[in-house]
């Protein structure tokens, strides 16, 4: 179980402190898929980065299975079972898709093993395994490879920061399949997805709404989702930015 206790985070802009996360307390129990939504700039991505250790809170504490991980590095948290999929996947010159997946598993794996992770995010493994993770890959391809690295971690807690950002509609429906598959095999682990997408919200066990750096609402999907439907916090997929569906009815 992941627990945040009174977590606050500030940034300094032009000599002025600005609070991004203000005294957030929340729990993500094992075996749950939790979707965090809320307006842009509300602090969702920062919250994910605080959990992964990419940013450190100014106050408060973060616990994973009752162990205080607040002062642990990114590496230590990864080793304890936190995996993180970046909103904007990083490009590497020279590092191949296979290398990245091999590093993610933390062991020497075969090409066949690596291909399975790619296949599960809808990529034809043969075409990608030798590719460099560089700008020759499209945004959607990178995003799926990013998600494959998180699958390959097989972590206790997997965090996805806006997985739908920058991908096409076809990839998006694939993505839903991936998350549904993860949900089915969740066992004792848990998944946090940061998303505005109605279809992702609809597969959640729990929804947390973050506004102005604080928890505005939280509860089971059936309780929270109806109040979000039709707002910017639960966008139908035909309104995904950059996607042209040819269908204006939604």
């Amino acid at each position, binding site marked *: 179980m992941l627990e945040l206790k009174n977590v606050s985070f500030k940034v300094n802009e032009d000599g002025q402190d600005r609070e991004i996360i203000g005294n957030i307390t929340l729990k993500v129990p094992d075996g749950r898929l939790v979707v965090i939504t809320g307006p842009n700039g509300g602090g969702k991505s920062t919250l994910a980065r605080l959990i*992964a250790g*990419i940013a450190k809170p100014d106050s408060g504490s973060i616990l994973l299975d009752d162990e205080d991980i607040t002062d642990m*590095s*990114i*590496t230590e948290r*990864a*080793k304890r079972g*936190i*995996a*993180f999929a*970046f909103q904007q*996947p*990083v490009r*590497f*010159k*020279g*590092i*191949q898709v296979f*290398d*990245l997946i091999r*590093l*993610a598993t*933390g062991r020497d794996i075969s090409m066949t093993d690596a291909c399975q992770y790619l296949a599960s995010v809808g990529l034809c493994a043969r075409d990608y395994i030798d590719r*460099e993770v560089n700008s020759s890959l499209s945004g959607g391809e990178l995003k799926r490879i990013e998600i494959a*690295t998180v699958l390959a*971690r097989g972590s206790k807690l997997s965090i996805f920061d806006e997985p739908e950002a920058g991908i096409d509609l076809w990839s998006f429906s694939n993505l839903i399949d991936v998350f549904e598959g993860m949900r089915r095999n969740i066992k004792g682990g848990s998944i946090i997805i940061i998303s505005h997408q109605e279809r992702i919200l609809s597969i959640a066990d729990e929804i947390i709404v973050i506004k102005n750096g604080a928890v505005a609402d939280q509860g089971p999907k059936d309780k929270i989702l109806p109040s979000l439907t039709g707002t910017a916090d639960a966008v139908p997929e035909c309104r995904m930015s950059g996607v042209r569906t040819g269908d204006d009815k939604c």
Partner: protein
Amino acid sequence: MLELDEIQKRLLAEVADLHKVPEGAYNIRSNGGSVGRASTENIEIIPREDGQGLTVRIKAGTKNESVHIPVVMTKSGIKETVYNDFYIGEDADVTIVAGCGIDNCGTQDSQHDGIHRFFVEKGAKVKYVEKHYGSGNGAGKRILNPGTEVYQKEDSRVEMEMVQIKGVDDTNRTTKAELAAGAALVVRERLMTHNDQNAVSTYVVEMNGEGASADVVSRSVARDNSYQKFDAKLVGNAACSGHTECDSIIMDKGRILAVPGLEANDVDAALVHEAAIGKIAGDQIIKLMTLGLSEAEAEEQIINGFLK
């Protein structure tokens, strides 16, 4: 293998991936003299009279054969200049593996200057691999100054892979090429410098015939207090295409000077250069740390990939 000690064998493995006597034609030079040589029916290796180099003649039409000419130096204080000439016959298709490994545990500098000239006939294809490696804890420097000249006739193709990853203190590489119509030159240089090492690499490629093309790409990493200079000049004297690229990572107090140069003397010459120098991107390190690597391990993976 031959009369080589363990250090010499290790150097041979580093520079030429050789763990036994190679198949095909070869000459192994150790501490200033040849210790093993073989010619084949199609590839003749003839020592120069002064002992300082070889003439390698590859018959026209020779296919899928290789020539290995590695050099190892394990004695401190040797300074040599070796001249190797390669004559590659029409339509031949061969791989030439050169390379030099220096182990210097002494206090005097060890220096190997290899001057290689390639005369490539019409339609011939050459893949040339040259690796440089230094080891040993002595105060004496390990110095390598390779000079390469390539003369390509019509429709020939030369691919050169030059690698220097470790242990060479001082290197001044010059590469000169002249390309006739339809000839293609592809160069992939990979370089990493440490400590107070110094590496200069200069290219002048002249494309003199219609349809000639050159692609010269360097990827390098400068660490510690090391210094690198990459100076690549492409000259288009006909309707041709040329591309040169220098892509570098700097770390610690490393310094790099990239001097891409293009000279178009024909209105149909299409020449492009790209150069980028910067430190490892922070988000690359963070991504690999989220996969469980330490910061140092992440850096190592990023550099390994970059120089792959």
